[in-house]
């Protein structure tokens, strides 16, 4: 049960403890924001919203109480880099949260840790205690009078949709984790109606790197619209699965070479909510403007059945749908029925087209990101693997299969 790092060393290893925070404390909050803006950092959870924009909106919002929330509800299938960051580099995350608190003027931080990672809680608690003793959290952070900030851990209870920022806030407030309508956005109406920023674990860690190494160091990597390095969780049919650091803009072929997955017939980029790319598209780049990802890369070898993949992901969404809106609640089970028909070899081309159009309806009409992205994998498989999925002869069920 070791933490497997594919890359021999990550940028995070080269950051001196406290370097980012002390750089941030030497500057005015506005200058810190400018530095992050110049770096071009975009949210590392997958959506890719510019971090500096989010923070500046929260900084401008007027309120007696603001909140910094770290989204550690890493539930996207195939993603595990946040687990590694929290177990190996928890200090960087807390330092990034402290910098965020300084920038937006927050006194309280919350880490929303998913229930499945409860075993990390003790470790994060220890780091929190140590930082309090070191004066890096508490009444006068870093010796600055008037800069009060502390962080508490809140546990999730096993719900994927709580990774969506408004659902996460609902859950923090003690409600069912049902996404809210946006706007209003959390930056002005967040936790208990107060301005709140919700950022991914990895985003906070990169903020520290940017302040320690400079915006120029960061934005000289990656592409123009997707700057900087990013961590990737690589799993599936490759010889060296694990956590890797690559600059954004890396092609899928390059990535596969590095992880030992050259034989792949398809790669799922972005987890269950991402898309499945066939061999012919391995020259595509992983970047917000091309193929976006929160870091999940699942490699499928030539022996894998793409309908199993589509089925697995759709079942996941059917189970995790909160049931609020009709397209997601009713649409996903229909797509599963469709995949079953394809498996039995009983799906006409006309019906497959109907299913694809249903998928597009889900993308357009669902209320939150879960429903909007639920059909992605199915649609990309239905588009790019037609020869494989159409006209099958039925197979007997495997023993021990899911119900």
């Amino acid at each position, binding site marked *: 049960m070791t933490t497997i790092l594919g890359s021999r060393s990550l940028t995070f290893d080269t950051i001196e403890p406290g370097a980012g925070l002390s750089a941030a404390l030497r500057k005015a909050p506005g200058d810190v924001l400018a530095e992050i803006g110049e770096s071009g950092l975009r949210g590392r959870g997958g959506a890719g919203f510019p971090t500096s924009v989010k923070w500046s909106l929260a900084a401008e919002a007027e309120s007696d109480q603001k909140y910094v929330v770290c989204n550690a509800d890493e539930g*996207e*299938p195939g993603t595990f880099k946040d687990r590694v960051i929290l177990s190996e580099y928890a200090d960087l995350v807390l330092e990034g949260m402290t910098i965020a608190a300084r920038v937006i003027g927050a006194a309280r931080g919350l880490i929303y840790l998913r229930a499945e990672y409860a075993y990390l809680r003790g470790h994060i608690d220890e780091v929190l205690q140590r930082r309090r003793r070191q004066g890096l959290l508490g009444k006068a952070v870093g010796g600055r009078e008037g800069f009060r900030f502390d962080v508490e851990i809140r546990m999730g*209870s096993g719900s994927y949709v709580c990774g969506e920022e408004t659902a996460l806030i609902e859950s923090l407030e003690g409600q069912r984790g049902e996404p809210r309508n946006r706007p209003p956005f959390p930056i002005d109406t967040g936790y208990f109606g107060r301005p709140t920023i919700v950022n991914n674990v990895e985003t906070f860690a990169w903020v520290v790197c940017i302040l320690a190494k400079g915006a120029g160091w960061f934005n000289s990597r990656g592409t123009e619209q997707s700057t900087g390095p990013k961590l990737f969780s690589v799993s599936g049919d490759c010889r060296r*699965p694990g956590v890797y650091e690559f600059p954004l803009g890396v092609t899928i072929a390059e990535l596969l070479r590095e992880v030992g997955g050259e034989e792949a017939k398809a790669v799922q980029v972005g987890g269950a909510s991402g898309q499945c790319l066939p061999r012919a598209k391995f020259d595509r780049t992983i970047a917000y403007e091309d193929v976006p990802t929160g870091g999940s890369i699942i490699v499928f070898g030539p022996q894998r059945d793409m309908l199993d993949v589509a089925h697995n992901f759709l079942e996941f969404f059917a189970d995790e749908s909160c049931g609020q809106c009709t397209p997601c609640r009713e649409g996903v089970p229909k797509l599963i029925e469709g995949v079953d028909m394809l498996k039995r070899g009983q799906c006409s081309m006309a019906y497959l087209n109907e299913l694809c159009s249903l998928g597009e309806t889900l993308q357009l009409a669902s209320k939150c990101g879960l429903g909007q992205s639920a059909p992605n994998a199915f649609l990309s498989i239905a588009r790019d693997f037609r020869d494989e999925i159409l006209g099958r002869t039925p197979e007997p069920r495997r023993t*021990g299969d899911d119900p």
Partner: protein
Amino acid sequence: MLVTERERLREELVRLADEHGRDRSALIPILQEVQRRWLRISPYCMQAIADLLDLHPVEVYSVVSFYDFLEDKPQGQFVIRLCRTITCDMFGKAHVARQLENDLGIKFGETTPDGKFTLQWAHCLGMCDQGPAMLVNDQVFTRVTPESIHGILAQCRETFGVHAVSDGKGPAR
């Protein structure tokens, strides 16, 4: 439930509410603690918590029914959650699932008659590079094989107490 038992339970819940506070954001931490200690959140508990936090009991039930890790039905001392995500599937999840059912004598979603084990599916446990993965309460097991299950279950049976297996430090390096 005996009246005295109920009174004792209510006292414990008052203590929990004193510790976590009585505003709405305290609800889930209280429910998590109840789940951990009594292995379920009974209708009586929901009513008592609703009284303490000044909520309608339906509000409490709606939260309990929403989250996978909160249960109104009694759970086993050890809740086993096997990851059903595609990567674990690709590396032998089906065999592990079958063997878990064989060794425990129950199906997924059920609890053993002695109240020791509950078997459930989980979504991605974030161990995709080391699958198949499963959680036993808070502890994570990776690269589980059908053969290794017997040893894991034996370890649970030998451990006295509900959460004795969790050392709070995360998986050993």
